[in-house]
C-alpha cells in the first residue's frame, strides 16, 4: 500500500483508519480461555423444541476432553486437522474445543438446514474435504456410515487429560461450502482471541449481557461473532438452530423477549423475514442493546422497516447496528456501536448505511488496483491489516497471493471512508450472497455450461439486489451456440439447487456474440450486471 507522494492543501485526507490496539487477555489460546477462572456459570443454553439444556464452560471442557480422547484413539499417529460436521449442539462445541485441546486445527463444515441424504452432503463437501486434508471427522452416527476418506468419530468416550497445546492455528474457515476451488482461511489462536476481544470491547460486552442466536456455528458470524465473543466476554447465549428460526421466525424474538437478551445477530435477510412475518404484539424488545446486521449487503429499507414495526415492542432504533467483517479477517472489521450512530452516505441517489468505525486492532484503507491509497470520500477496494487477519489460505498459494498484498488483506469489497466511518458500497470480488451464504460465479457457470450448448465461456452468473427478500438474487445469462438450443429454465434452476444449493431467479438466454467479453475471451460479469439494470435487449427467452 503506498501513500500519495505529495499532499496538497485543500484535498481531503487519505482514506486510512487505524483502530486502537487489539485488546489482550491472560489466556493465549482458546483452550486456555475456555478453562480460565470460575467455569461454572451457564454459558450456552440450547433450545430444542420446548427443552432447554444449559452448559457451563467447565462442562463444555469436559465434553471436549471426551471427544479429544476419541480423536486420539482414532488417529494414534497424532491429530492435526479435525472436521466438525454437526448441527448447533453441545457436540459441535465439544468437538471444536477438542481440536483446541489437542493443539489441532478445527475445520467447521456446513451442516444443512434441510435434511438430505448423507450421500448428497458428502458430494457437496467433497472439494472442501479434499483440500482440508482432515485426519478425523466429528459427525453424527447417520453421517458416519459414509466413507469420508478419514476416520469418523460420533460419540465422546471417556475423559482424559491432555498437555497444554502448542500455540498454533485455532481453526480453518472455508468461506464457501461447495465450490470447485475451496479456500480455507487459517486463523491463529492470536487472531481468534483478538477478534473476539475486539468485538466484545467495541460493544462493551460483559457478564451482564445475554445473547440469543440461531446462526450456524460453522459460519464465521456464528462461530466468532457469537460462540467465541461470548466465551471471552463471559456472557450466556441461548442457542437455536437455523431451521428452528426458519420454521418459526417468532421464536427468535420470543427468546429475546423472555430472556431479556441484550445482543442478537443476523444477516439482512433474517431481519427482513421478521419484518414480513412477525407481529410485534406480546413482545418486549426493550432489553436489546445490540441487534447486529451483517454478513450480506444491508438494505436501508430493512433497517427502517424493522425499527418502525418493532418500536411497538420497545425496540430502540439505536440498537440496530450495521457491522462489516469477513472470515479472512477472522470476523469483525468495522462495527457500529449504540452510543455513536452515524449517518447514511448518499451515493448516486442510494442510501448506504454506515458500518461504523474500525475495530480495535484493525487498520483499514481504501485503495485502487495498484495499491495507491484513495482519499476520503472516494470509492475503492477496502484493504485491512492487523493481528486478526488470517495467516494464509491452507495449501493454496495462488489464492493467498491474489488476496494478500504484503500484510494487507484485499477484502474484495468496495467502500468509502468518510469522517472516520466505513461504508461498504459494493463488491469487487464477484460473489453471490444469498441468505448469508456465499457462492462463486465460476461454480454456477460450470454447472450451467454442463447442461446447455453454449459458446466457449458463454455463461455469466451475476447477482442483483432483491429488496423483497432483503437479500441478493441470482441471474444467469447463457449465450447459446444456436438460438434453438434453449432448454427449460426450470431444469437449470433445479440442477443448481441440487448441486450447489443456490437459487437462480432468472435464466436468460442470449444469442451468440452478445455476451460482453474481455479481449482474451473471458466474460465481463460486471458489464453483464450493468446491462441487466438497463433494458434487457437481445433476449431469446427467459
Amino acid at each position, binding site marked *: 500500500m503506498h501513500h500519495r507522494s505529495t499532499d496538497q492543501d485543500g484535498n481531503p485526507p487519505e482514506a486510512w483508519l487505524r483502530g486502537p490496539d487489539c485488546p489482550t487477555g491472560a489466556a493465549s489460546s482458546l483452550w486456555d480461555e475456555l478453562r480460565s477462572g470460575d467455569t461454572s456459570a451457564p454459558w450456552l443454553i440450547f433450545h430444542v423444541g420446548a427443552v432447554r439444556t444449559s452448559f457451563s464452560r467447565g462442562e463444555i471442557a469436559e465434553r471436549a476432553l471426551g471427544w479429544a480422547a476419541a480423536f486420539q484413539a482414532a488417529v494414534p499417529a497424532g491429530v492435526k486437522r479435525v472436521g466438525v460436521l454437526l448441527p448447533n449442539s453441545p457436540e459441535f462445541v465439544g468437538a471444536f474445543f477438542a481440536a483446541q485441546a489437542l493443539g489441532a486445527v478445527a475445520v467447521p463444515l456446513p451442516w444443512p438446514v*434441510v*435434511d438430505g441424504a448423507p450421500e448428497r452432503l458428502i458430494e457437496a463437501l467433497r472439494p472442501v474435504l479434499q483440500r482440508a486434508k482432515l485426519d478425523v471427522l466429528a459427525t453424527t452416527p447417520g453421517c458416519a456410515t459414509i466413507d469420508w476418506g478419514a476416520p469418523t468419530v460420533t460419540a465422546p468416550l471417556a475423559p482424559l487429560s491432555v498437555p497444554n497445546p502448542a500455540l498454533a492455528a485455532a481453526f480453518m474457515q472455508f468461506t464457501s461450502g461447495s465450490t470447485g476451488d475451496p479456500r480455507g482461511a487459517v486463523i491463529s489462536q492470536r487472531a481468534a482471541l483478538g477478534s473476539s476481544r475486539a468485538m466484545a470491547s467495541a460493544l462493551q460486552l460483559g457478564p451482564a449481557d445475554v445473547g440469543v442466536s440461531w446462526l450456524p456455528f460453522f459460519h464465521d458470524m456464528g462461530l466468532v461473532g457469537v460462540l467465541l465473543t461470548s466465551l471471552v466476554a463471559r456472557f450466556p447465549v441461548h442457542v437455536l*438452530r437455523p*431451521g428452528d428460526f426458519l*420454521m418459526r421466525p417468532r421464536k427468535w424474538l420470543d427468546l429475546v423477549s423472555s430472556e431479556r437478551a441484550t445482543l442478537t445477530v443476523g444477516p439482512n435477510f433474517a431481519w427482513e423475514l421478521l419484518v414480513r412475518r412477525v407481529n410485534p404484539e406480546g413482545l418486549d424488545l426493550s432489553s436489546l442493546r445490540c441487534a447486529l446486521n451483517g454478513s450480506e449487503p444491508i438494505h436501508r429499507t430493512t433497517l427502517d422497516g424493522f425499527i418502525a414495526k418493532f418500536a411497538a415492542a420497545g425496540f430502540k432504533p439505536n440498537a440496530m447496528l450495521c457491522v462489516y467483517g469477513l472470515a479472512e479477517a477472522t470476523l469483525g472489521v468495522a462495527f457500529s456501536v449504540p452510543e455513536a450512530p452515524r449517518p447514511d452516505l448518499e451515493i448516486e441517489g442510494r442510501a448506504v448505511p454506515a458500518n461504523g468505525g474500525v475495530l480495535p486492532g484493525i487498520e483499514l484503507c481504501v485503495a485502487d488496483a495498484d495499491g495507491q491509497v484513495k482519499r476520503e470520500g472516494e470509492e475503492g477496494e477496502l484493504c485491512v491489516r492487523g493481528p486478526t487477519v488470517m495467516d494464509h489460505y491452507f495449501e493454496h498459494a495462488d489464492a493467498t497471493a491474489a488476496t494478500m498484498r504484503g500484510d494487507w488483506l484485499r477484502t474484495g469489497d468496495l467502500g468509502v471512508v468518510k469522517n472516520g466511518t466505513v461504508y461498504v458500497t459494493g463488491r469487487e470480488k464477484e460473489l453471490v450472497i444469498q441468505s448469508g451464504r456465499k457462492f462463486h460465479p465460476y461454480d454456477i457457470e460450470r454447472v450451467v455450461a454442463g447442461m446447455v450448448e453454449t459458446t466457449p465461456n458463454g455463461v455469466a452468473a451475476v447477482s442483483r439486489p432483491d429488496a423483497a427478500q432483503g437479500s441478493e438474487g441470482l441471474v444467469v445469462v447463457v449465450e447459446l451456440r444456436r438460438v434453438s438450443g434453449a432448454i427449460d429454465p*426450470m431444469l437449470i434452476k*433445479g440442477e443448481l439447487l441440487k448441486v450447489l444449493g443456490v*437459487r*437462480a431467479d432468472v435464466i436468460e438466454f442470449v444469442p451468440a456474440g452478445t455476451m460482453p467479453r474481455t479481449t482474451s475471451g473471458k466474460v465481463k460479469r460486471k458489464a453483464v450486471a450493468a446491462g441487466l439494470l438497463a433494458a434487457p435487449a437481445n433476449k431469446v427467452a427467459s
Partner: protein
Amino acid sequence: MTDDILTQRIFKMMAQLSVVRVPDIKMEHRLREDLGLDSVCSMELLSMLAEELDLDVPMEEAAQVTTVAGTVEMARRHLALKQAAAAS
C-alpha cells in the same frame, strides 16, 4: 377442510414462493428440483403453511419434507392430530 381445498391452498402458497404456476404444480414435484425452492425458501413454505393452518410442526419433521406430496401429507397429518386433540 376437504382434501381438495387443502391441496389447492397449499398449491397457491407454493406458487407464491416459486416461479411455477398453480396449474403446473404436480403432486410428484420435488420442492427443490421442480419448484426451484432453496432450503431457506422451502422452510419458509412449510413455516407459512403451519402458521396459516395453525399447526404445530416440529422443525425436524419439516426438514424431512422434500416433495409436494410430502407437504400435503404433512399438513393432512397435523390437521388430523389437531382435530383429534380438539375432540378429546
